[in-house]
């Protein structure tokens, strides 16, 4: 699964380049994230702008990644599309991940970083 990366200060911004995180790709997503987070950076901010669909398999994969990173490297989610935001809200997982409306560094606003 394609995930592109960029550093922003201490943080690592990972952009999911695929439109769905679902039962088809949940395992590959975990593996791709494991590889992408081998490089340093904290927090890890996952740019979800391309992701139009997340099911419970995809949500489980996000949780697995968050556990893999551990308490020392928080996993944030940014630019959630409505369908994806709703899954997080219904499952109450929106209180577990730190959420950003936009990807830090993407807008010319110093307070967003």
């Amino acid at each position, binding site marked *: 699964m394609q995930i592109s990366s960029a550093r922003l200060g201490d943080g690592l911004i990972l952009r999911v380049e695929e439109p769905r995180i*679902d039962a088809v790709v949940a395992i590959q997503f975990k593996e791709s994230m494991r590889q992408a987070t081998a490089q340093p950076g904290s927090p890890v901010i996952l740019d979800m702008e391309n992701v139009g669909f997340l099911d419970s*398999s995809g949500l489980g994969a996000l949780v697995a990644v968050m556990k893999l990173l551990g308490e020392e490297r928080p996993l944030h989610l940014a630019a959630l599309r409505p369908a994806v935001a*709703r899954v997080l809200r219904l*499952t109450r997982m929106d209180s577990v991940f730190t959420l950003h409306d936009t990807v830090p560094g993407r807008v010319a606003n110093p307070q967003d970083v």
Partner: protein
Amino acid sequence: MMVRSVPPSRPAPPALLAARLTASDQAEGARCVHHFGASPQATRSVLSDIEQALERCGVPASTRETIELVLAEVINNVVEHAYAERPGPVELRLRATAGAIDCVIIDEGTGMPGGKLPGGTRPSVGGALADLPEGGFGWSLIRDLTGDLSYRRTGGKNHLSFRIPI
């Protein structure tokens, strides 16, 4: 696995697939039936077909998103549990009326444990990081988003039906 749409048993006038439903269509409902082999990839294909058909029928985007999520969860359950990742046939029937989409999913796999629907309790997410659940969200999502959810097993087949309001 082959994915094909089986057309309704009687010819559907173009109006059934148009944005506006006539009075008789509203009563009878635009119908479609899909037959496919259970697999995650086939699920994507069927969901895509249904999304396009519902868009043509004028169903709003947020409702289409709800239907896509519910069907994904239900079909994933069939793939993973009813068929335990083995191949098997799935029949999906949709009926769109002015107020709701009625769905029935039929498979020939193992029945629900205890012969009834899982309770669908939402997994608790308030604990330590290491204790966060990675699964078990599906049925609570399905229950959150559907009405008239019911299950029966008959003739060696599982029938799951529900309604999603438009």
